């Protein structure tokens, strides 16, 4: 699961059960959760149980989890993940009967409707029957979304005050700026040129892959709606609408009059984010690639950024035929064949040569490089120690994802890693020098009534994968989440 999925998962896990029941009323949501949020094994379980009329004994599930794939621990973690999304119900343990599992009614109904088709009309959007402007094609939408999104990123980067040529950049809408401020990606600083400054969270945001960036912003938006209760916005309905958008087809016009009024009111904000294109004086809207890839798994579809690279590299060609540039074998992308691909070359002496003209990419590089020279099509720089709360992994994955085709090809031929190992090691060492402690947010469990209680709860925490640290002697342990542990304690009390 990508970073974007991880953030979404954390948001979803905080929602109450009633919110899930409402969410799953929409088949699009159930399908999106199924596609995006579940691991491979979880999908197998859901598919297996979806059309089963009766609850399924938990012990029979063991056949699906052979010992070589982790066995019981893997099974328990999968089930815990499914329960936290309210997809699966597990009956409480009792002495005289076995535990049984079944798909929750609301999710079952939603997913069945999604698979079979049916239910109320328009749950997957209603295509517009009005004539469509022929100039609005996929290439146009990609360009539009890219411009919108780059504007937002520029705003965050520019706040840094690094060199940036901002020609043709109009900046995002005031509402988006406020959102970035509220989410503490940038903060007001009167001493800088633009009056705002970037925060650590902002750096993290910049180095994320586009899909994760979009989710970061959207979740900020949902949280803002939660706080402003009088705005008439309902975050659950908003989330449901986002899931619906993600199931729409790129390049197709959809009818706005089929949307409820609250959803129509959301459209202007989504336009500001670049998720949809909304031509003036029409009753149509077009989802852009940013919207339609919201719930696709990163491995199944290429990233938005590489899609953009493809779209800009051959604007007239078929943008749907390229493979992902990150991790994909070299020589497979048309961009490579045409020789227009851009990329970063890293030498073992920490020198970086970036073939790019994008001011945005240069500004991002400036976050962790010392820029030395700038040429019309290339920037020469040197890696420097990291700061600003950027992690080594972020830098490494960024360099990896943007490595030059030549480096990727060389690595495939010689069977070595794409980035020089010395450089990767050095980046990690810099991090160790700066980060003197490892922090994990969570909950400390203490004051147990009995040794048995401690042993049972800490074992359960380990099984579902939330245990971070424990000390058997002092009967203390630290877990990253507490919701399921609380439920477990309750059911344990009942069972006694």
């Amino acid at each position, binding site marked *: 699961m990508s970073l974007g999925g991880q953030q979404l998962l954390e948001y979803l896990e905080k929602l109450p059960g009633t919110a899930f029941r409402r969410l799953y009323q929409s088949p699009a949501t159930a399908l999106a959760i199924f596609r995006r949020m579940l691991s491979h094994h979880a999908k197998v379980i859901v598919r297996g149980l979806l059309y089963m009329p009766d609850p399924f004994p938990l012990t029979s599930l063991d056949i699906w989890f052979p010992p070589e794939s982790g066995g019981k621990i893997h099974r328990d973690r999968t089930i815990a993940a499914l329960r936290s999304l309210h997809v699966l119900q597990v009956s409480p343990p009792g002495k005289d009967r076995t535990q049984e599992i079944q798909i929750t009614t609301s999710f079952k109904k939603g997913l069945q409707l999604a698979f079979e088709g049916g239910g109320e009309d328009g749950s997957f959007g209603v295509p517009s029957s009005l004539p469509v402007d022929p100039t609005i094609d996929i290439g146009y939408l990609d360009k539009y979304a890219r411009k919108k999104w780059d504007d937002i990123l520029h705003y965050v980067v520019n706040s840094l005050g690094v060199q940036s040529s901002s020609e043709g950049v109009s900046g995002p809408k005031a509402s988006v700026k406020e959102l970035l401020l509220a989410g503490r990606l940038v903060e007001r600083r009167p001493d800088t040129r633009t009056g705002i400054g970037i925060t650590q969270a902002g750096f993290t945001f910049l180095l994320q892959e586009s899909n994760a960036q979009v989710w970061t912003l959207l979740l900020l938006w949902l949280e803002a709606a939660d706080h402003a209760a009088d705005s008439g916005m309902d975050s659950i309905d908003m989330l449901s609408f986002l899931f619906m958008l993600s199931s729409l087809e790129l390049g197709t016009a959809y009818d706005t009059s089929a949307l409820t009024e609250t959803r129509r009111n959301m459209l202007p904000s989504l336009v500001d984010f670049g998720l949809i294109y909304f031509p003036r004086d029409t009753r149509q809207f077009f989802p852009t690639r940013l919207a339609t890839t919201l719930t696709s798994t990163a491995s199944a579809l290429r990233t938005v950024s590489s899609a953009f690279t493809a779209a800009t590299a051959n604007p007239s060609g078929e943008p749907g035929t390229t493979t992902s540039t990150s991790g994909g074998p070299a020589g497979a992308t048309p961009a490579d064949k045409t020789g227009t691909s851009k990329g970063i070359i890293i030498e073992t002496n920490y020198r970086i040569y970036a073939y790019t003209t994008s001011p945005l990419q240069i500004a991002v590089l400036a976050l962790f490089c010392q820029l030395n020279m700038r040429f019309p099509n290339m920037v020469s720089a*040197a890696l420097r*120690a990291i700061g600003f709360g950027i992690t080594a992994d972020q830098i490494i994955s960024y360099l990896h994802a943007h490595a030059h085709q030549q480096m990727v090809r060389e690595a495939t031929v010689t069977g070595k890693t794409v980035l020089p190992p010395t450089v990767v090691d050095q980046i990690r060492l810099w991090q160790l020098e700066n980060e003197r*402690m490892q922090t994990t947010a969570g909950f*400390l469990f203490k*004051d147990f009534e009995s040794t048995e209680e401690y042993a049972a709860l800490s074992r359960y925490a380990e099984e579902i994968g939330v245990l971070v640290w424990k*000390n058997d002697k002092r009967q203390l342990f630290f877990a990253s989440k*507490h919701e399921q542990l609380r439920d477990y304690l309750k059911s344990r009390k009942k069972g006694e």
Partner: protein
Amino acid sequence: MPRAIRGVLIQCEPAIKSIIVHLDSVNNDIIIEDLDEQTLVVKENMVQLLKQKLEDRLKETYRPEEPLADSD
């Protein structure tokens, strides 16, 4: 019923931990629970401040090497 206390688990070297304990001894407003030589739980809202203070303290005694000397 056991208690669950929200906080941030910090795992670090014993030397760093002793600095944290020392920082806490001023107001006792950082540490929730001292777990062992390399582990402690601190208040969530104090982590940023703690990192800052720790950095200041380390700067007094420790100077990271400038990692890059330009070799042109």
